[in-house]
């Protein structure tokens, strides 16, 4: 991987921005359609997709080395563990 980042074209940024806006619109629309946990998971999935776009393109993760990605993996595991294991308590009281 290159140590220095290549400039990303204005165009690609615009495309990502359009996609992000569309996905936010999509989420608002989905929320208006139906409720319940399935919808909640879909909305969270869409938000995660947005997060992936921001991370990889806006934040240049696709140009960084493996050590950056390992860090994010560690972070996500810790967040998931904190929320997941706390649920083991709260949901089963």
């Amino acid at each position, binding site marked *: 991987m290159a140590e220095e980042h290549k400039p990303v074209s204005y165009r690609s940024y615009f495309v990502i921005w359009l996609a992000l806006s569309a996905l936010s619109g999509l989420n608002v629309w989905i929320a208006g359609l139906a409720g319940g946990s399935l919808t909640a998971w879909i909305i969270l999935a869409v938000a995660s997709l947005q997060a992936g776009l921001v991370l990889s393109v806006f934040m240049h993760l696709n140009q960084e080395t493996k*050590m950056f990605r390992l860090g994010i993996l*560690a972070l996500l595991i*810790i967040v998931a563990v*904190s929320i997941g*294991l706390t649920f*083991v*308590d709260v949901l*089963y*009281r």
Partner: protein
Amino acid sequence: MTETTLNYSGFYTEGPRKGILGWLLTTDHKRIGILYLGCIVVMFLIAMVLGLAIRLELIAPGKTIMGPQAYNATFTVHGIIMIFLFIIPSIVAAFGNFLLPIHIGARDVSFPKLNLLSWYCYVAGGLLAIASIFTGGGAPDTGWTFYVPFSTQTTTNVNLAVLGAFILGFSSILTGINFVTTIHRLRAKGMTWGRLPMFVWTLYATAWIQILATPMLGITLVLVFLERIFGAGLFDAARGGDPILYQHLFWIYSHPAVYIMILPGMGVVSEIIPTFARKPLFGYWAMAISSLAIAFAGSLVWAHHMYASGMSDLAVLVFSFLTFIVAIPSAIKVFNWISTLYKGSIELAPPMLFALAFIFQFAIGGLGGLALGAAASDVHLHDTSFVVGHFHYTMFGGAGFAFFAALHFWLPKFTGRMYRHKPAVIAWGLMFVGFNVLYMSMQAVGIQGMPRRYYDYLPEFQALNLVATVGSWILAAGILLMFYNLWQGIRRGRPVGNNPWGGATLEWQIPSPPPLENFGAEDPVVTKGPYDYKGVVADEY
């Protein structure tokens, strides 16, 4: 011992600025390490006096030297200082800062200015924590855990203490960020991951915990602070809150934090044992991986502090099971140290004695931890002085003794002078005996049912409490002798050469004290592992 002057003073005299500003504005990792070291020792001594006062109060039933409110404040402040201002920064910030760059062949850490900022955060946080004792509605009396609902209702000065701990968190995070980046980016040529000294591996694992766990404490303390200001009922069951969730958030940080305390201690011991057994560390990769495994497994087990809190039975089961997993990598470490000692040519120098005491006491603390980790026995032992004994065995007998071992091992490198060995051994003996008398009695009386955090107790607990208090005096005598001897050594010990102990890591190949930028004009090139003692001889001193 003859008085001799040093003809070389290394980084103490080199540097862009002279005098006090040369210290207060320094970005040299060695000077920052020394600044930390000074503050940390002072903090330890202050909190030690409080600890002795607690013990003195407990020498007999009823009021001896203080009443309930003073007692609550004393153990709270003792806990806050010992945890946030002594043991969490101790080895990482003092010895890590000084040694990590040298160990990996670098000239400084990645972000020297942030490093200085982290020291200022430490000082600011420390001042706030100490100010909380004298201002507002009196010293905080919540215990170092700031449990709600009491911490949101008491009129004592919890606000300042919480703010202080929050800022101390920043200090810890900045150190963590610095260390991870430094280890990834600044290793010298030839310093592969397989050639890192074990101390660096443990600092690496610790730094990840500092980064990924400390902010959880930050947000928890902020919420306590906001709750005290707005009275919004965040943790008030009547308004949709849940006090048990506070405990979850608190321990999601504070349990991993106990590994911030112990891992660097394990690293120190992993340096000392091979040096004084003249054998390579047994099972290098098992040791390195188990450090990371401890760091990871340690973040899965937080709720074993909460078996008696009223959380769900399933959670008790799950966390009890997970807790036993942590024992595995810890045991790997103990076995590997023992295997390193096996058939080594052992030299019982003072650092080695402290390291051996570490293994002994940490093993006792760890086994006691299993008794607490099993939910069935914990319900009986919870909130008794068995718990107090247990965590002193791990944090003090473990991490604290590793800190003292590190002092005896590296102070000659830091200052270029050797302390006297005979008083050091006597001090060690006093501390070892005093420590075990004190905390073994507390564990025993805890099993009989004596609760913690009370200034008074039933008469049947009298005998063991008396023994414990006498133990605390022996311990304190040993500590004072140790610090006196080290201080004398710093002032007028005999000068030492580069390598008084015969170590094989990089710091022993440069002058004592090290020069500015550590290595001469040439960057070091590493060609052998950290425990390759072939051809390494100790200098006479």
